[in-house]
């Protein structure tokens, strides 16, 4: 798991440019599913065919990043956000283009330090002129954070664990899933961070009868933070509600029953942030509606270059997802 997660965390894939992550996922699920197919937006559907209920499990491949908005006459790069980038967490970090070229993000020296905004920042890729810059970068190119993963004890720290940790959970679930009565589609989605744009068409095409999203959630276990009953190491979260989705009660209760049966540490999760949600926020509203739940991986410092998860929670999420997929979902009422 550590090795898989390291590989996924290090992969380059800002929203809309998930190709490298998709190639990695394809390689890792090969032999464990019947078919793998990409749709027009780049969603990757790894499918285990069955006669039972059509079930969709989604994890998003994309990560937040920056998009080049201007290259100035000296070769400094101005940028805008891709997804929920926080300006105060960006200064002095490094960003990486698809080519591998690395830029240092800095704030303009003059200006109000309290008022940190992306348009007061720039990225220095070491270009010595606009002409040199023009050979490497143009308006609309994207970059993601550049940071190596670290493992210390049970804790895994890296960029893009939102949501590569869930990609790892789905891949591992595909490997462990022996027999399933269901028609299982593991969907590695695109463009979640810019508004769950991939999951909607994917769900429309698959027309699932029940769905799960697997994504990270915040925690309430660090100094002076917002109140939240989720802690790192206390097991996977079972979603009650977030800013865009209320976990379907029957899906939630089934997940709870399975967790108890497996004697799995788990926690109920309420994410009380108005704008925070997962692919489930669009999946549950597709076509005539899809009963949808969410398995959450507790994660500290989400959308920073150093997101932190607990590997025991990740293992718990794998076991919970496998148990869910091994359940006869038709018989369970879906």
């Amino acid at each position, binding site marked *: 798991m550590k090795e898989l997660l390291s590989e996924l965390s290090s992969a380059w894939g800002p929203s809309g440019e998930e190709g490298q992550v998709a190639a990695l996922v394809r390689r890792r699920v090969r032999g464990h599913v019947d078919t793998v197919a990409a*749709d027009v937006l780049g969603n990757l559907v790894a499918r285990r065919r069955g006669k039972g209920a059509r079930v969709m499990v989604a994890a998003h491949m994309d990560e937040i990043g920056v998009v080049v908005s201007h290259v100035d006459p000296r070769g400094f790069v101005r940028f805008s956000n891709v997804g929920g980038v926080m300006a105060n967490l960006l200064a002095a970090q490094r960003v990486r283009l698809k080519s591998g070229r690395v830029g240092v993000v800095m704030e303009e020296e003059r200006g109000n330090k309290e008022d940190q905004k992306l348009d007061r920042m720039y990225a220095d890729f070491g270009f010595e002129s606009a002409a040199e810059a023009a050979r490497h970068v143009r308006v609309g190119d994207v970059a993601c954070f550049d940071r190596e993963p670290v493992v210390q004890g049970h804790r895994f720290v890296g960029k893009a664990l939102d949501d590569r940790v869930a990609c790892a959970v789905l891949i591992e679930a595909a490997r462990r899933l022996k027999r399933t009565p269901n028609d299982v589609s593991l969907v590695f989605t695109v463009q979640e961070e810019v508004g769950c744009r991939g999951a909607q068409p994917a769900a429309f095409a698959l027309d699932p009868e029940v769905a799960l999203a697997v994504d990270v959630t915040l925690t309430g276990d660090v100094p002076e933070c917002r109140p939240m009953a989720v802690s790192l190491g206390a097991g996977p979260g079972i979603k009650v509600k977030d800013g865009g989705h209320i976990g379907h009660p029957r899906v939630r209760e089934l997940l709870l029953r399975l967790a108890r049966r497996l004697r799995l540490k788990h926690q109920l999760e309420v994410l009380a942030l108005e704008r925070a949600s997962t692919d489930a926020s669009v999946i549950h509203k597709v076509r005539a509606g899809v009963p949808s739940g969410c398995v959450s991986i507790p994660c500290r410092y989400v959308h920073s270059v150093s997101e932190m998860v607990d590997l025991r929670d990740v293992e718990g999420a794998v076991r919970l997802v496998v148990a869910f997929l091994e359940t006869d979902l038709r018989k369970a009422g879906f």
Partner: protein
Amino acid sequence: MARPGAFPWELFEALSNARGVTGDEGPVRRLLRDYLAPHADRMEVDAMGSLLVEKRGRRTGARVLLGAHMDEVGFMVVRIEKSGALRLQKVGGLDDRLLAGKRVRVGPQALPGVLGAKPPHLGQEEEASRTVKLEDMYADIGAADEAEARAHVRVGDTVTFDAAFEPWGAALVRGKAFDDRVGCALLAALVAGPSPADFVAAFTTQEEIGLRGARVAAQRFEPEVAVALEGTGAVDVPGKRLAALGAFPCLGRGPVLTRRDSTTISDPRLFELFERAAAAAGVRWQPKRPGIGGTDAGEYHRAGPGARAISVSVPCRYIHAPAALAARADIEATLELVRAALPKLAALQRPGGTPRENS
């Protein structure tokens, strides 16, 4: 008589002058219907009021949808005061700094009015230096009292800027609602001209308050390839800060191609197709500033099992204001570019259909 396939300047002028605030696009739709009737293979108005036109060409392939929205930003009357003053709400994105003192037209009778605000010398000193917000303004139609106003105006009437289309020197044109009547005129020209391939032209409603018409049109046709034709903001205006951040797009540098805005990441293959078509046709283009603005493409690419989508725009200074400026050459070049790209769009079918169809 203009040569067939040329940009229809007279139609554009009429469209710009027509009044069609979001939700009240009737006058714009009527103009387009009349203009397109001889050229369309099929035409209908859907439940959202969008005008959907099917055009058959010589070839078929992927389902292609070209779209432009008919609505413009403006205002709605929300209350009629005892004094006869009309209180307004914004419809779509409008900058308060541009409003006080502007001439407007109110309701279906197009009553002339002016956006009034308390004069600065009657307030506190700091008030004089502050931007007056629309909630502190009113439309003044010269009514003596509420009864007189009510004789002409109802709550819910829409209000447009009062601005007439006119040439602005030899190179530019000036008018209101270039966003997106310029797109409507371009799309009408494509329908009226000879078409190399089948496509659906969607003249949509309610773009400015959330792409609502486009969503329904896209659900209906489930396009595989979609192009939103737009008027987009040009920011080639003075300002040191703007220069540091990049003062583009510019008037006179050709059509604007979007890679990313706030609603859509353009399909890379479609973007490349347009880049190549531009090179082949010798049309100079410029990039859209990423991350800002949004278009109907935001709905088109997510409808059904997903579609390739992009926005192609004419740069316009001062959009969402009474006096936008656009360059004639940019408008004509945009038409040339889309026309050059159109025959190639049908080749961009969805990979292997939808995943469900694969099984």
